[in-house]
């Protein structure tokens, strides 16, 4: 009984070890872009749900418009630029959400009134 258990554990460890060392196929730039876009869009939606969006993420009158410009860059095949812009957009969307959450209890009491 004891021997069988040791063998089973050994086999399990071996399989797990093999899996861990199997090199994963690196994501192509396009795949990285698609994953980042989905993450960013979800973050923007979350920020918008609490009225916490920042100006330059996607507002039509902003000169920066990181998200739409990332999509444009990807359409033109420039995934590196698209990923760079998405990184900023995702960060700003996350910060907008966090800020709105942190300001939930904002009021005159914070200004000495």
């Amino acid at each position, binding site marked *: 009984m004891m021997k069988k258990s040791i063998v089973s554990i050994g086999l399990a460890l071996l399989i797990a070890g093999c899996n861990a060392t199997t090199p994963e196929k690196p994501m192509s730039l396009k795949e990285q872009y698609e994953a980042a876009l989905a993450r960013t869009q979800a973050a923007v939606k979350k920020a918008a749900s609490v009225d916490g969006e920042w*100006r330059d993420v996607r507002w039509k009158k902003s000169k920066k418009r990181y998200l739409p410009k990332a999509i444009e860059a990807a359409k033109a095949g420039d995934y590196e630029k698209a990923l760079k812009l998405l990184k900023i957009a995702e960060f700003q969307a996350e910060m907008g959400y966090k800020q709105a959450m942190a300001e939930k209890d904002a009021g005159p009491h914070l*200004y000495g009134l």
Partner: protein
Amino acid sequence: MRKIATLLLSAGLVAVSTQAVSGPKEDLEKFRTYFEQKFPGLQLDEFGNGVYALDANKRIQWEAMEEFPPYEEFVDKGREIWEKPFKNGKSFADCFGKDPSKVRVKYPRWDAERQQVVTLELAINDCRKKNGEKPFKWKKGPIAWLSAYLGYEARGQKINVVIPEDDPKALEAYEKGKHFYYAKRGQLNMACADCHIKYPGHFVRGQLLSPALGQVTHFPVFRAKWEKKSKNGDGLGTLHRRYGGCNKQVRARPFPAQSEQYRNLEFFHQYMSNGLAINAPGYRE
């Protein structure tokens, strides 16, 4: 140790309950006292003159400008709009009453039936739609001209926004507007209150910051900045145009003019200037 803990806990509960029961009237009282202490000696109605009540040099320039005000021709255009009948033969007087001087002071108001804040501009476009006319655009042009005319006619009357305290929805709208004013937003992490409660009288770059008290009395406003952008010298804009500009400056995404967020904000903002004389339209840099 136990006594200290009990004391701290009670103090905390008192603080929380004070915030919870603070209604519009208490808010207004504290708001007024705060500005009276911050600018001792300044008469209440002087707050309606914004930065010109704080800086003597700017005031001289402003008074010179007000002798031949650049907004006059647009106020006249507003009068024409008021007087011109709709295609169905009716006019704005059928919606608002015959006396144009009695209109401005009724807004913003809580509409119990619609369960929302109704601003003057919203009422103007409601009236147009009701009479089969195309609504005006919200931020500038004809809506600002007409609103400026109605403000001009109401000069000297006191702002008198009523928050029906027995209507929880009205109170909720007021609280939302209040929260908007005090909540930091945008990449610069700034609240309306940072500039206009904490630092009025200080400079942001070359601009002197106005106090929150009296900020709404001169709206719609004629701004030199907007005049420069315009092709026909029209620098008039509504309060919601200004809200959008402020949000943009702190790098927050602005809300659309007449959105629920800005109407609630206006409800709170105008209420805080209750008792001050309307002096619209005003000239500002």
